[in-house]
């Protein structure tokens, strides 16, 4: 493997993503897990940059870190006192879950390694034109208009639904 700056940074991001994801599932303190998740999300955003999906990367950071993660932390703080920040696990479940997950991973890796269509697709490093404008075109004036509208309705529904579910009942 050639040592280039790009490779170096890529592996850095990959390592960061995977390692912090591992932390997310292994750390026993849920707030720590949430902050590890933040690192994971950053790592994935970095990988998006490598895929020349700059808009996607920024969206990832805005929505995930600025939105979802904050939501998660709010959820943590509203539902647990400081003493309940531990993530409970049971050993048997850990074992079973580990076996299944490992089997799944093996399976996925086998598939990835053995699928001929996916082999030897190297990033030739060509600079792609910026994606933002095309994304806009495709979403607002192209085949993705309908999904876009559907998704916006979905968001609205989720918004209202979430507000409705989580509002406090007026107890008499």
């Amino acid at each position, binding site marked *: 493997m050639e040592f280039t700056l790009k490779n170096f940074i890529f592996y850095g991001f990959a390592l960061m993503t995977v390692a912090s994801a591992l932390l997310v599932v292994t750390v026993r303190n849920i707030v720590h897990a949430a902050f590890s998740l933040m690192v994971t999300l950053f790592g994935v955003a970095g990988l998006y940059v490598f895929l020349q999906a700059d808009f*996607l990367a920024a969206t990832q950071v805005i929505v995930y870190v600025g939105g979802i993660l904050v939501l998660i932390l709010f959820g943590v703080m509203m539902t647990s006192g400081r003493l309940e920040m531990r993530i409970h696990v049971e050993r048997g479940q850990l074992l079973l879950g580990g076996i299944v997950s490992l089997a799944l991973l093996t399976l996925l890796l086998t598939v990835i390694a053995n699928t001929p269509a996916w082999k030897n697709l190297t990033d030739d490093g060509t600079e792609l034109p910026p994606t933002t404008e095309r994304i806009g075109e495709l979403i607002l004036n192209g085949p993705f208009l309908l999904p876009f509208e559907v998704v916006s309705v979905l968001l609205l529904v989720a918004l209202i639904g979430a507000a409705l579910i989580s509002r406090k009942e007026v107890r008499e």
Partner: protein
Amino acid sequence: MTLQHYLVISAILFTLGIFAVLTSRNAISILMGIELILNSCNLNFAAFSRFMTPPEDISGQIIAIFGIVLAAAEAAVFLAIILAIYREFGSIRPDEVDTLKG
């Protein structure tokens, strides 16, 4: 960097997410697992879009954006439900919320 690099990373993320969902005794932790899974899916979309389609075709990225949006909606509703469950049961451990058990 080849496509398989990304696929491997995403496979690992996916598996870790599954692991979290399977083993965690905390609903919010489960949500984090789900987010990992969704991220791995989005990464796959973006990667396939980069490697398997012509460079002008960025449908994969758009799907990934939709995926992010869905994740946001899902997280909001999930947390609302968790909040409601917490009010009702005083706990968000999924194994304690088992009134469906009959």
